[in-house]
């Protein structure tokens, strides 16, 4: 029937909207940021140590380092905690706990990032300043807050991966006399490995990309951080802070930072889909 064919075509166009949006985003971010990267020189832009936009100095290395530290810190806190909760939910949880846990994790994902940031600022920052020294506004504060913020990603994806491990694997291990923990550690987790890694990469993406919460707790210092108690700036927080008033070359440099961020996320995305595809194609999981 003709109208069916029309609808099919319309839906085909609609289905292209995501890839069209992605193309537009890529195009416009690169058009606004790439010229400056070329002008400054990619190496000088990426590895330059001075960010002084009013003097024409555009080096983002301190922010790259800040982003890397904060993200690694977030993973160090969020991954073990999140993985433990995922194991709890799939292997240990009594029914009442499982029914509480799912909405709780959802809620954790729904709380606006600015609230995480402000609670970090009023609770965590003074705590770090008084007990560990330094300014308090620090990489450590950013790591803890981001570590909490990536929990929902880590928990939900690794929980799915662990659930997807066939019952027979567990039964086999238990029948051989393994304890429940030996079964989990030796059989279930290795079988769910690629899904768990995907959840970590996803959490990494979220940590790299988070802006507002980070602005509130890392101190936004432009010097190269030397310890986790130092203040720092990240790629995202610098854009968020300076976009409000930047003009001309300065604004271009912020878009150029956006280009770096965009490329970084694309690499992480590619890694995730590679892992997910490998999982669905078989491998150790099935």
């Amino acid at each position, binding site marked *: 029937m003709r109208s069916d064919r029309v609808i099919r075509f319309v839906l085909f166009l*609609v289905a292209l909207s*995501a890839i069209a949006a992605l193309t537009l985003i890529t195009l416009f971010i690169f058009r606004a940021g790439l010229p400056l990267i070329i002008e400054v020189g990619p190496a000088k832009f990426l590895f330059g140590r001075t960010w002084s936009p009013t003097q024409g100095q555009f080096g983002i290395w301190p922010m790259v380092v800040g982003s890397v530290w904060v993200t690694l810190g977030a993973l160090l806190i969020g991954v073990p905690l*999140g993985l*433990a909760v995922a194991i709890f939910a799939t292997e240990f949880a009594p029914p009442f706990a499982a029914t509480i846990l799912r909405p709780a994790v*959802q809620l954790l994902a729904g709380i606006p990032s600015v609230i995480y940031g402000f609670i970090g600022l009023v*609770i965590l920052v003074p705590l770090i300043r008084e007990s560990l020294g330094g300014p308090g506004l620090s990489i450590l504060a950013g790591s803890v807050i981001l570590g909490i913020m990536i929990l929902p990603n880590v928990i939900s994806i690794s929980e799915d991966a662990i659930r997807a491990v066939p019952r027979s694997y567990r039964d086999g291990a238990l029948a051989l006399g393994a304890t429940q923990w030996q079964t989990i550690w030796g059989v279930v987790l290795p079988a769910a490995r690629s899904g768990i890694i995907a959840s970590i990469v996803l959490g990494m993406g979220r940590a790299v990309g988070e802006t507002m919460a980070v602005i509130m707790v890392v101190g936004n210092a432009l010097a190269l951080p030397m310890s986790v108690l130092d203040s720092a700036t990240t790629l995202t927080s610098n854009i*968020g802070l300076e976009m409000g008033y930047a003009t001309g070359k300065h604004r271009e440099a912020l878009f150029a930072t956006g280009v770096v961020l965009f490329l970084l996320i694309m690499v992480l995305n590619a890694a995730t889909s590679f892992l997910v595809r490998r999982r669905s194609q078989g491998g150790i999981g099935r």
Partner: protein
Amino acid sequence: MTRVRVSPKVTQSMAKGLIWAATIVTVGVLLFIVIYTLARGMSHVNWTLLTAEPADMGRSGGILPTIVGTVVLAMFGVVIAAPFGVGTAVYLVEYTREGWLTRVIRFGVDALAGIPSIVYGLFGFVFFVLTLGLGWSVASGALTLAIMILPTIVRTAEEALRAVPDSYREVSLSLGAHKWEMIATVALPAALPGIVTGIILGIGRCVGETAAVILTAGSSLRMPTSLFSPARTMSVHFFILAREGISDEMAWATGAVLVVSILLVNVVINWLVARLIRRRVAR
């Protein structure tokens, strides 16, 4: 060198204890965040706060324009994103087989899901605000948010449609329905709770978003009067009040209203999901 062998039974109980502890810490952190925000803010939440215009940069008065800004941005964001998101899902599930085309579409959706909100903000600013000349406005903000939540809606709608048993489709088609009639009268209604869940998740993301909104909708404290006037959402208001040290009380009051809204959104989602599961079990 001799390795001390710990009995598997001991390891088992240690691991179990640690995992329980981690879970309790996680839930504890969540409870702390919610309770702390409400405790700091609820005492300042009253009728005036919800219905008055702000005064003195937000130091006193109410937050009505930011509530309106939040509702309007989230609403338009979802109204724009939902047809595209659900349409994409219908195309993926009902009209194609897996192949290079679905791979391209999925690549687009996955990539959009990973892009940080600040990059959406940059894009919305250079594209909607500057290139299309929409300025800092409800329109720019809503369009940016719509692209941002598109992946969420596509994925949930796709999952919901895939969960509809093929027998439903076969019955409808065998009774002489055209493909589209089958989709509109059978597949979509059956998948509706899941689709609505995705839409509400999208609303939640719009409400909580700050970075992308501040760069595209601006941060004007005036009541938005048209699609082309700037607006400030509650999250942006909270951020500005807190970060610039304008007023902690008003910040927490705004935060409390935000958290209560998010709680409500979550209750609705869970209610819908529970209904969906009950229906599936009943089958």
